[in-house]
Each structure stands twice: as C-alpha cells, then as structure tokens.
C-alpha cells in the first residue's frame, strides 16, 4: 500500500513552502527533513524536553506534538527566524552568547523560541517569572542558572532597543501584544 500524500502550504519565518507529506509527518520532521531547517532540534519526541519548540501563530508549541498537516496554513517561526533582518543576532540569541546560556547547544533552539515569545508577552519579567518562563524546557548541560540570567539580559537588551526592537515575531504573525 502506498501512503497517501497531502499537499500542504507551510509558512515558515514568513516564507511560504509547498510540500507533499504523509499525514503522520510530525511538524518537527517536516521542518528538518522536508525543509532542511535543522535549527529545530528533536530530543524526546513526546513533548517533554522542549528542544523542538517553535512558534505556531506566535505561541510556543512543541513541533514534535503537531502534525505538519494540522499546521498547514498557519504561521510558524523557528529559531532560524529569530535573527535580525540584517542577519545579526536577535536580543535573546545575543543574551545567550553573552551569559554563556548554552554549552552543547542541543536544547538552545527551544529555549530561544520560548523566551522570544515570553518576553514579547512579558517584557520585564521578575526573577521568578524568568525562571517560570523556561520551566518547561530541559537542559542537561548548563544547570539553568545562566539561562535564567540570559532571560533577564535579553529583557534588558530588548528594552535598550526601544519599541522598534520589540516588534512581534519576524514573521509579524499578528500576535496581539499584551499590555
């Protein structure tokens, strides 16, 4: 039996892609294998580790727990979409580099996407809120302290950038900013 393929359109980091996938293709695999966007990492493949976290219509979502066919016609932002238009590092990426928020880097894409959206919704988190922001992501290397520092540093960098730097997502996915 040959498996039925579905023609879908995925909008990733603002660019539309047409692809043909079986219904069982996970969004994480569609991004990595079909689109070659290997920034999204896959650790546990059952929702626990957070390495695969992408933004689906602006909201952090496990790419390993979404079927590509379900994500069709929605806006996806991956870690590749977090850099500035000129290719330089975005504030969260910059903060991770400055604070040594990573060692092996396997978990990092999921942290970056999660914090990017977290700071959009809460631009000046308390220390406790910064910890809570990353509580759903696992890191086996750093011990988390520098990741929490990076959240706070990224908040400062965004604020220094001013309102222009606090634009929604790179794909501009119409997410309402909370006041």
């Amino acid at each position, binding site marked *: *039996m040959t*498996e*039925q393929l*579905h023609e879908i359109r995925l909008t990733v980091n603002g660019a539309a892609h047409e692809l043909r996938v*079986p*219904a*069982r293709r*996970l969004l994480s*695999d569609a991004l990595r294998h079909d689109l070659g966007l290997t920034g999204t990492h896959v650790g546990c*493949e*059952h*929702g626990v580790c*957070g390495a695969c*976290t992408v933004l*689906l219509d602006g*909201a*952090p*979502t*496990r790419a*390993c*727990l*979404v*079927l590509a*066919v*379900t994500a069709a016609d929605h806006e996806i932002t991956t870690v590749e979409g977090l850099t500035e238009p000129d290719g330089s590092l975005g504030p969260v990426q910059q903060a991770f580099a400055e604070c040594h928020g990573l060692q092996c880097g396997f978990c990092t894409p999921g942290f970056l996407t*999660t914090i990017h959206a977290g700071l959009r919704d809460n631009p000046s988190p308390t220390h406790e809120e910064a910890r*809570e922001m990353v*509580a*759903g*992501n696992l890191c086996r290397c750093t011990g988390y302290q520098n990741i929490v520092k990076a959240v706070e540093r990224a908040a400062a960098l965004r604020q220094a950038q001013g309102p222009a730097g606090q634009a929604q997502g790179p794909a501009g996915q119409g997410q309402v900013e909370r006041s």
Partner: protein
Amino acid sequence: MKPAPFDYVRAASVAEAVSALAGDPGAKVLAGGQSLVPLLSMRLAAPSLLVDINEVPGLADVTVEETGVRVGALARHAAVLDSDDVRRVQPLVSLALAHVAHATIRNRGTTVGSLVHADAAAEMPVVLRLLGGSVEVEGSAGRRTIAADDLYLGPLESSLAHDEVAVSALFPALAPGAGVAFDEIARRHGDYAMAGAAALVDGDAVRVGYLSVSDVPTVVDLTGVPDDELGEAALARLEPMDDIHATATYRAQLVRVLTARVVAAARSHAAAHDQQEAR
C-alpha cells in the same frame, strides 16, 4: 519512533467530523494532540483515520452562562486559564489549570480534550466531577449532555460513543458562600502529579476529588467528618494504587496530607468569598 500510517481529514464542521467518525471504526478525533500525538509516536495508538477538528469554526469560545462557564472544544488550556470570566465564575477551574503541564503544552492542548481523554492523572476530569459539570456531545444520533458522573468508565475510557465529538463542557459556577481549593504533589514542577486533590466546601457540605490516586477520577463526600480525621475518612473510601511513580503507601500518605490542606484552604476561601458577597 514515528507514528504508523493513518488517513487524515480536516473537518470543516462538527457534522462533517461526526460523519467521518461514523464511516470508520478505527477513526479518532485530533484536537490539540498533546496526549494523542505522543501515543501515536510511541505506537500505543494506531488509528486508521484522524479527524482533525482544529479548523472547525466556533468551537473555541469560553462563555459565561446562567449556571456556569461553558468551554468550547477548541479552547486551549492557556485561553481558559487566562480568562477572567472563568476565574470569577468558577475559580477552581483556574486553580487546577495552573497545574496542567507547562505553558507550552497549555498553548496547544484543549481543556475539553483533556476531559474526554479521561486520564485519572489529569487535573480537569476530577474538577468537572467535583463540580457536577457536564460535557455536551454531538454524534450521528444528535446532541446529548453527559453528566461528569456518567463520563468516566475506566482508565482512559470515557462514555462517548465512537462517532461522538465533544463540543463543549460546562463547569458550574461557584455558589455564593462556597469555597474551593486545589493542591497536588508532583516530582517536578509541571509533571503529572503523584497525587492531587480538589475541595469544594458549601455550608456544612465538604467534598474532595482525587487525581492520580485511583484509576478513575474519584470524589469522596467528607461532610460531618472532624478535621483531624479527614485523611483517614477519605482513605476508607479510596484504594490508592501502586505504579512506577509512587507506592500505594506513599500515595495514602499524600492523600492524608492533601485532604487536610485542601479542605482547610477551601474553608478559608469560603469565608473570604462570603465576606466579598456581603459587601
């Protein structure tokens, strides 16, 4: 591992979803996928067809009704948790939702999906039972309302017929002067609890619901039990289970501790709630 092959339809309406389900005995509804997709990937479930309801219009509403708050099938946990109406009308829903997984899972998982998934380790089924809520379903035979007490048949087994789609759930409002509380103990923040309890105190009536203690969400009536005997009275009506997460003996101890805590907290909530009403 990857999921086994299955067919897929994106339903445009509840009626379309119902007829797709009716046409294939191996079909399953796909809502947020936060329970179903892991089961697919681990090949613990292998449906022949997934009926995706995510694009069905009108199912994501959270609305206040005369008797309580109605949560549509596509309202994500995060939206329900964010709702001021829910917090005001039935605070127990918000208290319990804060313990459901992590924010990222709550962004996608639906509260109604969690109710019909019928996991005894989940927070919302026992909340629905304790409050005497219900689920509205639509199938080939039409619409019906299933009371929470009739919803849970066994572990991961609800009383929905194969071709029925849950369209919404009703969480009854908190009565004036009543109080609620929720607490659970988990190994790690955001994990499923080893045991959890929700209390509803209304006048003399005291009821407590338990998750992760038995293999179905269980509610126990503790009206009239003296405070220092609450835990033992609850245990007389429960059979804590052994599993890889905790022994039955340890769970029994968690029941003692949690029961005392949630009943006390619900009493003080009732007192505060009473004062608010009086103003």
